[in-house]
């Protein structure tokens, strides 16, 4: 009776404003959307800068932007696209997708996750504010002594902004690694993780070890500029080449930070739209890890012409990277080979990625040839190479990912006809814009110039490249229209519109805040495929492993989790957490061993399992 007399006190306001909710959210899905929206906004800004640059270069003579502004534009275009578009875009996708793909309810550190996000708009604002303070006309590579002596205050804003963005990335990397190592669902061993999770893991390691080095370099530059430091000033005993070492020690892993997530997205999409498993899963994992490791050994191939580095070493290791990259290419082709291909928009982008990224990759191999590199250093060949890997590579994969996961994010499929129109505009535009730049580079056209002589013979190719740039812009307009009509339309995509394999499609679209009502059992790297096609199909991979053949206690009670049945909480009778924690022993050999089984046995157990498929009932 007394309870009715007490006025009802609400612990939380019942109707918080949606704006407040988005500003204070720690939900990895909302933070992912915030990341992607912010990144896309900066993509549009960076795109406008690129159009201004290309418009100026369309014909000889200075017609459109003054030289000072031109220098700021190409510098800021690169900084914006790399640090404010591609990196946060991939982090945003990872934020949304990775926890769901490993079967977790959120990231390991949700509030640090929110902190990482909010540093992006803050750092972006600092970088954009540079335009109001004399700009930052020092290129994205910020080479000393130019960057150390450039009087514009905008450079300091750029440095501060980059330190913020770097800190954001480091915290994000820590968060991803802790999530992947600690929060995986029962049964999700390392070698059963979706490929996108694997590339996020390797990318996070690269971020964790490469970005602090950039931060130290940025701080040295800041001290040189503001406190009379002499790091890069020969008059004070310093050395400008030091900047290049520090920058490229970060810069080359950075290139893989920008492309490995793209590899992961394509590796998610190809199996789904080919109706086959990913060919060579283990080779793919090894190739990803070795690209990451080799990424730290090749920084000085950006510095061949300085004469300060040992050429054969860096040339050799650069060539070596072609091996794991080649393995990936053959794996992708073999995945598609003999499959039932469906060319929906995500698949179109994935195939477009494979075909065009190949060109960018081959360009890169050319640059590893020392004499060739001496010839094309700082020419449009390099511009062409970077755009074939970042536009035809990263941007194509980003659109592939957006079209693929959009129904998961918002419950609605993007329009297919507009998507295909956008794809072809982007595909043609990319080639028209960047292929002529190969020829310009071979012909000796230097990058970062606002003008060129009318009799140099470069006019036609430059004009063609500008047309390509506007075709790309047109494709983005089509995409914006597609976004607009899709967001206004009905949300009836369903949970699994692509008939996919991984856990994110096993929950609703969009998922609830806690991600899963029921977590499917994980018995292979394609848990949803196993769920849909039953335990003892011809594929023979979806059944609980025989006792003792896999690691840890979570597999010992596998018979309780018959396929298709809900996992009853994630605790056993003792109330002890069972699951991801047990598997960490595999990564940290000095940690408490669980049942004495390490990771290497899992793969063997999987192989053995395939040989003798058994019904789950036999174990109970």
């Amino acid at each position, binding site marked *: 009776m007394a309870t009715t007399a007490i006025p009802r006190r609400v612990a939380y306001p019942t109707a918080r404003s949606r704006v407040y909710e988005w500003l204070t959210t720690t939900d990895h899905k909302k933070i992912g959307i915030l990341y992607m929206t912010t990144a896309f906004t900066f993509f549009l800004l960076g795109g406008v800068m690129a159009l201004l640059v290309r418009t100026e270069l369309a014909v000889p003579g200075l017609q459109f932007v003054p030289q000072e502004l031109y220098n700021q534009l190409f510098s800021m275009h690169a900084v914006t696209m790399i640090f404010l578009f591609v990196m946060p875009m991939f982090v945003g996708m990872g934020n949304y997708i990775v926890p769901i793909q490993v079967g977790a309810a959120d990231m*390991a*550190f949700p509030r640090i996750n929110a902190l990482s996000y909010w540093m992006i708009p803050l750092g972006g604002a600092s970088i954009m504010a540079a335009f109001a303070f004399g700009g930052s006309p020092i290129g994205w590579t910020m080479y000393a002594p130019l960057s150390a002596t450039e009087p514009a205050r905008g450079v300091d804003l750029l440095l501060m902004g980059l330190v913020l963005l770097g800190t954001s990335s*480091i915290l994000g*990397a*820590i968060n991803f*690694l*802790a999530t992947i*190592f*600690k*929060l995986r669902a029962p049964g999700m061993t390392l070698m059963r993780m979706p490929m996108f999770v694997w590339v996020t893991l390797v990318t996070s390691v690269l971020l*964790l*070890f*490469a*970005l*602090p*080095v*950039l*931060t*130290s*370099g940025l*701080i*040295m530059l800041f*001290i*040189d500029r503001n*406190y*009379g*430091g*002499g*790091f890069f*000033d020969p008059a*004070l*005993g*310093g*050395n400008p080449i*030091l900047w290049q*070492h*520090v920058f490229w*020690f970060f810069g080359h892993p950075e290139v893989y930070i920008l492309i490995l997530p793209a590899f992961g997205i394509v590796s998610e999409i190809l199996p789904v739209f080919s109706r086959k498993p990913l060919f060579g899963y283990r080779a793919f994992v090894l190739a990803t890890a070795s690209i990451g490791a080799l990424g730290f050994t090749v920084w000085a191939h950006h510095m061949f012409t300085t004469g300060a580095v040992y050429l054969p070493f860096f040339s050799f290791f650069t060539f070596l990277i072609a091996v794991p990259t080649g393995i990936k290419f053959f794996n992708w082709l073999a995945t598609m080979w003999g499959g039932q291909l469906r060319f929906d928009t995500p698949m179109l982008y994935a195939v477009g990625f494979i075909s065009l990224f190949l060109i960018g990759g081959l360009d890169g191999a050319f640059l590893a040839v020392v004499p060739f590199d001496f010839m094309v250093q700082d020419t449009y060949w390099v511009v062409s190479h970077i755009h074939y890997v970042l536009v035809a590579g990263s941007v194509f994969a980003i659109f592939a990912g957006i079209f693929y996961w959009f129904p998961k994010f918002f419950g609605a499929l993007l329009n297919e006809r507009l998507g295909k129109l956008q794809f072809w505009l982007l595909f043609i535009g990319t080639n028209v814009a960047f292929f002529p730049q190969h020829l310009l580079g071979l012909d000796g056209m230097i990058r970062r110039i606002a003008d060129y002589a009318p009799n140099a013979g470069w006019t036609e190719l430059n004009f063609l490249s500008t047309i390509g740039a506007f075709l790309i812009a047109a494709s983005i307009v089509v995409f914006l229209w597609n976004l607009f009509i899709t967001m206004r339309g009905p949300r009836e995509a369903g949970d699994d519109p692509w008939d996919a394999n991984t856990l994110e499609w096993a929950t609703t679209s969009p998922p609830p805040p806690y991600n899963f009502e029921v977590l499917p059992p994980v018995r292979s790297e394609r848990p949803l495929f196993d769920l849909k096609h039953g335990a003892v199909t011809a594929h023979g991979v979806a059944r609980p492993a025989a*006792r003792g053949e896999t690691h*840890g*206690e979570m597999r*010992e*009670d596998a*018979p309780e989790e018959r396929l298709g049945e809900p996992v009853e909480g994630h605790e*056993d009778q*003792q109330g*002890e*957490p069972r699951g991801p*924690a*047990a*598997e*960490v022993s595999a990564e*940290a050999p*000095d*940690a*408490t061993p*669980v*049942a004495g089984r390490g990771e290497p046995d899992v793969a063997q157990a999987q192989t053995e399992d395939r040989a003798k498929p058994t019904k789950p009932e036999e*174990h*109970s």
Partner: protein
Amino acid sequence: MSAAGGVIVPQREEEAHGPIGHGGGVDTAFLGMLLFIGSELMFFAGLFAAYFNTRAAAPVWPPANIDYIEPFPLATPATIILVLSSVTMQWAVWRIRAGDRTGLKRGLAVTLLLGAVFLGIQLYDYYELVTVERFGIDSGVYGTLFYTLTGFHGAHVFGGLVGISVILLRASQGQFSGRHHIAVEAVSAYWHFVDVVWIALFVTIYLLK
């Protein structure tokens, strides 16, 4: 373990000491701290690379007209104090692992004091160098390197002191026990890291000639 698939009971929490063993594997928060320390290591690696790159390229070291900064009378005592603070920090960790909250508080307080003394010595050293020796961050690349490396280390010591203050405050409210003290473990790992960086800095700047 029965044929029906007996459940292996994970190590019981009471038996687990320190960050290792909570249901198997490293605690998530502690793993986060280890990864963060990894990134900090790379930050200092960048600064050390600058030092050795510059030193290798210089015809004479230290550059002309500049004397070595001597390890006495300030740097060596400071080093001993910082190493001692690592010992007291570890002692505090061992105390709380054994469930001794008073010992934890005492250990943390002594560590805080020693860390503050270290910072005080460093600031006094800076003051002396700048006012008496006229040796500043703009006194050539040697000065830039000295102040940047030791300064960023000092900033990290300050960060560690903030962390120790926070856990001392929490300890005084009785928030830690023999089973739940992951924040103490994490701050302790960070503090040891800061100490190790100083030893490397001390050897590099003061001893390597």
